[in-house]
């Protein structure tokens, strides 16, 4: 009888202990959600307070003067990221195709793929400094195109790795059927693998774009900044992120308000890309 009661007490203790730890885990989840809500609410409330149509359409006012907008940053950001995407997509997808279609059983290609996988998390500021050394220094001044190259370098591994992973999911029987009809490898890749993996590759591209739209560090030393709207990719070019950095660090209240408004637009932009990618992935399953 005594032993039975002892056992009962021990089981109770274990149950209480389990409930306690699970409660702790619940608290950590609350902690995580708490930060999410805090940052989202701040960005949205402070952003919406200061947002106006002038922000997108007006050129900036001189420092310290109220009014004006951030047209130069929006235009620059759009040009820099679009160019980066144009450079990044073909190269990234090509490498991804090679990793899966040609090198699945080669140790060396596997090594290349793993290196690329590691490059996904390469600190972005490092890419910025390297591009400065390779492109900006020889030219002698900052220019927009070098910013695009830096961003393209950051997005390449993301696109390559997702493409490679998606292509792995294409069943081999499809490829074998095409080979049996006498198709060449390039035809199999073009008409079978890529056709079957279209949606997945698109997801990779969107993830790549989402990765670079919010980047600041690599642009600091490449496209740099410009107080005027420019469409010339060989001039220094403002971007939304660098402008937020400069404006938030600056001494004027008006600059801070503009930085919040720009942050809101940037956040919404990246979240849209992110949700698009998530939606495409969800459909896939």
């Amino acid at each position, binding site marked *: 009888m005594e032993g039975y009661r002892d056992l009962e007490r021990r089981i109770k203790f274990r149950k209480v202990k389990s409930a306690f730890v699970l409660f702790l885990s619940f608290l950590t989840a609350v902690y995580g959600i708490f930060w999410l809500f805090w940052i989202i609410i701040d960005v949205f409330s402070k952003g919406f307070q200061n947002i106006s149509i002038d922000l997108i359409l007006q050129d900036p006012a001189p420092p310290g003067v109220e009014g004006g907008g951030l047209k130069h940053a929006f235009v620059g950001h759009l040009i820099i990221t679009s160019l980066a995407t144009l450079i990044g997509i073909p190269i990234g997808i090509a490498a991804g195709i090679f990793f899966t279609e040609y090198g699945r059983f080669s140790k060396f290609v596997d090594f290349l793929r793993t290196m690329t996988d*590691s490059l996904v998390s390469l600190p972005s500021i490092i890419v910025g400094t390297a591009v400065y050394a390779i492109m900006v220094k020889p030219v002698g001044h900052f220019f927009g195109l070098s910013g695009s190259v830096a961003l393209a370098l950051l997005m390449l591994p993301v696109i390559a790795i997702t493409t490679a992973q998606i292509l792995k999911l294409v069943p081999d029987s499809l490829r074998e059927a095409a080979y049996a009809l006498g198709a060449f490898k390039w035809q199999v890749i073009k008409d079978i693998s890529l056709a079957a993996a279209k949606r997945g590759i698109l997801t990779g591209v969107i993830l790549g774009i989402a990765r670079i739209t919010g980047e600041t560090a690599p642009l600091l030393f490449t496209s740099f900044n410009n107080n005027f709207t420019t469409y010339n990719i060989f001039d220094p070019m403002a971007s939304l992120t660098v402008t937020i950095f400069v404006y938030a660090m600056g001494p004027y209240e008006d600059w801070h308000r503009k930085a919040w408004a720009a942050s809101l637009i940037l956040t919404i932009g990246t979240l849209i890309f992110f949700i698009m990618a998530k939606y495409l992935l969800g459909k896939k399953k």
Partner: protein
Amino acid sequence: MDGINKHTYRRRDKIIDKVVFIALASVALFLGLLYPLIIGGSLLKEAWIAIEKFGVIGFIGSAVWDPVREIFGGLPAIVGTLLTTVIASLIAIPVCIGVAIFITELSPKPLKPVFITAVELLGAIPSIIYGMWGFFVVSPVMADYVEPFLQELLLDIPIIGKLVDGIPTGIDLLTSSLVLSIMIIPFMATIVKDAFEMTPQLLKEAGYGMGATKWEVIKDVVIPYAFPGIVGGIILSVGRALGETMAVAFLTGNVHKIPTSLLDQLTTITVSIANEFTEADTDVYLSSLYYLALILFVISFLLLIFSKFFIFKRLEKRWKVTGI
């Protein structure tokens, strides 16, 4: 189609086959091999002046950062980078494991995707936003409430009191690490959660079948099984924290001094580069910043390669063996 024509078609296709192969192979070779070599090589080349002038030990071991006398030592920035990363990870690791347990074991099924999306959304916010928000919102709260409170609580205790010594400004090691930890939580939590989910249901049920409580199953079945994945996720997140620039750019104060208290200003490798790169007016100055970049590159790349080659490769094999 007559015979000759067919022959030329086959020849054309064969040539295309070769061209495609060479094009794709060279792109892959560029990405997997030349890209890291070019990055590392250009950093090494630019850092060479500083490497020759200060040497390796002379740079890593020196705490002097004096642009006027052109003497540069990387110790404060390196220590700052390591300290913020370690403290941020110490905050983030238990939270991530808790969040992973919550999502995989506790949350009601219909709410699961909501929580996963919420965590992932937090990870999709650009780091500059974290930085600015940390500067305008978190930093004042830290300076006005949290840090004075910590001082009141801990200052009188010997040794620990030293950690909160100083004037609470909100621009310090504590705030930097906190914001950095918020930034890496989603990233780390997602990987840890994925590792948790890899545990075969069968093993868990065996645990429950023996009368184990939920926590006992998590502690003795899920965590041991997911352990390599957890470690891999932590290493990847540490790599991310090491190289993070914008989230801490506003919050460190960029002071080249080794912090002795949580309330001291500091600098990190990335913050020094971001703040001083365009102002560096001498070759040695710029070269020293490149030296810092090179050190960061070596540390983070080694870390990433280690986690990829040793942990995730092994995991892939194991998950294949267990049939998942």
